[in-house]
């Protein structure tokens, strides 16, 4: 490579700077692995996965959240002192060369510690006679730990490229770590509360797709997998790809900022007063936006506003304290607090703008009213997830239709819904009595969404219409298996009960045999007959298939006369138990 892009000398100097940390973290890992292996051998514990993940891979977690950021901090710490900053910027290398050479030393340092730790952990497992699954899992953890370490290190590299003091660097690293989560949290809740049609629960899943930083942050998943003991989560490729891409983006951003970073930023909080103000505003907005979100949600909720107020006040207070304390500590001048006061107006203005946008969009979306003759179609949905008490397949089928969305055909029902909306607009969206339901109303090219309490009589009408539909009959005859048809049942478990003795039969094969027989019998049955059978044979039936669904507790009765094959399969399963 040419000298103006990468330098071997600088690369080696970077490694010299990391030497101490590399030795420390490698030694700590080896000591941990050896000590823990001995302890596990003495107490006869598990080498493999316990409730807290793979025991011997715990040093990875420490390295991801402490080691790698410390490596990055050490590598670029010269930017925080005038003497060292001058020294590095006086070197006969371009800024690109300095950044890329030191970055490669940082990556090498992280790779070296991961490799040494990995070797120690693999050796320990090899001595323990661990199986192929454990070895595979350790390999996955090692690789994920490496990518996660690069991710956390890249955050520090990015913040060090734009700041000139340790304090600002730490604060910015925290902000970079949490700000994407804050923004997506605020955005998701904003969409969910004001434009439900665009949310994950609605038609377009805009908010759902914005959950990416929440669920695909690899270091976070690694942390949860240790705490929650769900190591298999790490095998999914998307979080790995997402985190690697974000890491690269952070490093590219850091590279660009480093190239244009002024050497005189050293020992200063920010390159300029304007950038310092931007730091303060972002920091304050990270807290205040959530506060504003809660405030508007409280206002939308009407009578519940007081439930939200304590959270709002706490978050606004934290935002203000963070804003001024940051200025005080980073600039070390009490007077600067007063100088920073006018810019706090921007934080207030941004929050007012956000509140206005939130409330405005919500009001616009929810003040929609229409006349029946202008309506092309109305689709009714269950509001949010239906969590009512469900005991029969008839209820489940109805709920499934509502969850999927049911297009209303009855002219009379459409009229009633329009009237209900008009009533709600006039008296406030919560002034109707009855259940809460959501309607997507297509009127011309636009589809609007309204969620409102409807009159019991209207719900009865909707229910009656749904129960006449083919969709309802389809769901009525759908007997979910253990591995198929998870949606919309999302079943968790299954058992067979005999009323008196409460015998349970578990096991995939036995249960599947019963379900197979039941499905075959129900498939050919008349839907109306099946419905009346379900209505007349409830939970008090002697033998039944029992589900735990997201709707509630569901039981399908089995009888010698109507479902003989399923009944005998169930009896066989119970007797063999």
């Amino acid at each position, binding site marked *: 490579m040419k000298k103006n892009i990468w330098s071997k000398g600088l690369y080696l100097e970077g490694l010299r700077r990391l030497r101490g940390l590399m030795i420390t973290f490698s030694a700590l890992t080896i000591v941990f692995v050896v000590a823990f292996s001995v302890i596990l051998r003495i107490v006869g514990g598990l080498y493999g996965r316990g409730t807290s993940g793979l025991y011997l891979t715990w040093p990875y977690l420490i390295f991801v959240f402490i080691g790698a950021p410390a490596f990055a901090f050490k590598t670029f710490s010269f930017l925080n002192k005038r003497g060292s900053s001058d020294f590095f910027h006086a070197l006969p*290398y371009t800024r690109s060369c300095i950044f890329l050479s030191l970055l490669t030393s940082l990556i090498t340092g992280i790779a070296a510690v991961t490799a040494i730790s990995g070797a120690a952990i693999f050796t320990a497992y090899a001595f323990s006679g661990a199986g192929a699954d454990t070895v595979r899992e350790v390999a996955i953890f090692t690789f994920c730990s490496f990518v996660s370490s690069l991710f956390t290190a890249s955050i520090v590299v990015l913040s060090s490229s734009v700041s000139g003091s340790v304090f600002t660097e730490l604060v910015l690293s925290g902000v970079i770590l949490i700000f994407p989560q804050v923004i997506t949290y605020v955005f998701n809740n904003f969409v969910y509360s004001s434009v439900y049609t665009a949310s994950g629960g609605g038609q377009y899943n805009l908010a759902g797709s914005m959950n990416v930083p929440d669920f695909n942050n690899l270091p976070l998943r690694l942390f949860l997998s240790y705490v929650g003991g769900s190591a298999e989560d790490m095998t999914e490729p998307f979080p790995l790809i997402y985190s690697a891409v974000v890491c690269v983006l952070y490093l590219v951003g850091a590279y660009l900022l480093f190239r244009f970073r002024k050497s005189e930023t050293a020992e200063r909080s920010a390159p300029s007063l304007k950038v310092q103000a931007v730091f303060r505003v972002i920091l304050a907005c990270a807290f205040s936006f959530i506060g504003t979100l809660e405030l508007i949600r409280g206002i939308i909720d009407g009578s519940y506003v007081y439930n939200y107020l304590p959270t709002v006040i706490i978050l606004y207070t934290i935002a203000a304290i963070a804003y001024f304390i940051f200025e005080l500590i980073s600039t070390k001048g009490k007077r600067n607090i007063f100088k920073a006061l006018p810019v706090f107006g921007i934080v207030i203005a941004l929050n007012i703008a956000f509140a206005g946008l939130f409330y405005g969009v919500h009001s616009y979306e929810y003040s929609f009213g229409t006349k029946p003759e202008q309506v092309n179609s109305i689709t009714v949905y269950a509001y949010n997830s239906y969590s009512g008490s469900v005991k029969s397949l008839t209820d489940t089928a109805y709920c499934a239709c509502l969850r999927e969305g049911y297009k209303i055909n009855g002219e009379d029902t459409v009229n009633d819904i329009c009237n209900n909306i008009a009533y709600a607009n006039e008296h406030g969206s919560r002034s109707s009595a009855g259940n809460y339901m959501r309607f997507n109303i297509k009127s011309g090219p636009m589809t609007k969404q309204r969620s409102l309490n409807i009159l019991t009589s209207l719900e009865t009408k909707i229910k009656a219409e749904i129960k006449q539909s083919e969709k309802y009959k389809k769901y009525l005859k759908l007997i979910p298996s253990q591995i198929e048809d998870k949606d919309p049942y999302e079943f968790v478990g299954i058992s067979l009960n005999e009323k008196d003795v409460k015998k349970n039969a578990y096991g995939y094969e036995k249960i599947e045999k019963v379900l197979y027989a039941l499905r075959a019998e129900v498939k050919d049955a008349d839907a109306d007959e099946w419905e009346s059978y379900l209505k007349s044979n409830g939970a008090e039936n002697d033998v039944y298939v029992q589900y735990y669904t997201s709707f509630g507790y569901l039981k399908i009765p089995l009888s010698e006369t109507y479902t003989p094959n399923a009944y005998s399969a169930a009896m066989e399963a119970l007797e063999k138990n």
Partner: protein
Amino acid sequence: MITLKNVTKSFDNKAVLSDIDLEIKNGSVYGIAGSNGAGKSTLLRLIAGIYKPDKGEITADKAPVWENPAVKGRIAFVPEEPYFPSVVSIKSSAESYKLLYPSFDFDKCLTLAMDSGLDYRKPVSSFSKGMKRQAALILALSQNADYLFFDETFDGLDPVMRTRFKNLINEEVISRGATAVVTSHSLRELEDVCDELVILHNGSVVYENAVDMIKSSYFKVQIAYDGPKREEDFEGLEILDKSKNNSVFELIIKGGRAEVTEKLRATEPALLDIMPLSLEEFFVYELKTQGYTAEPVKGGLR
């Protein structure tokens, strides 16, 4: 030759240097003096390629300094607060220098350290302030750079070491044709070592010339007469500053010594003392013309 053309540098919208034009000739020692906050360190960092000028151009032998590794490889810079890549020892720092500067002479570094009485195996952190500066100077001199920049580096050295390092710098200039630029508050320091003097004030160059020229062209004169004297009696002399203490006039005069002496003797003084102007006196005079003076304490001494 290092050339600065219309160089301007600001921090937080405050101009620290404004439209600086300067030429630093190869093979000479430049001293940069100036009032506090005049921009001496900033100027040095600009020509070392550490800071980027907001406006203007800095070149070394017609090649830009900024982001130019070829030029920066010919520069050694010692800041006011020296930085060592390794605090373990001078030797360890020298190993880093060897990696970072291709022209770094490792053996020269160790030899210079030994000659200066510094243990190159001892931790730099255990060194005194003066010893740290010596170590920084040694590392910089071992770079064998064409341009040597020292930011108030001599201020913390004892007189013996100061002389030693001044000699070492002179040796670099004479033997290798190196160019040195030294900033200092102490004009006495610069007087001994510099060929050229640059005075900065409020971000501008207010004076630039050879030190010898100052010594041979500027004089401080104390002169007294038996009777009263008029302005016309000093006609033909370029008097830059004049004050009177009782009956003794104190004059700062520019001109050739022989010519000045002859003209003053012609005025038949009762007392005449002609002394060369020290750099410090010249500095005070030069800044006085810029309105920068030490005002007497209000109310005087009680």
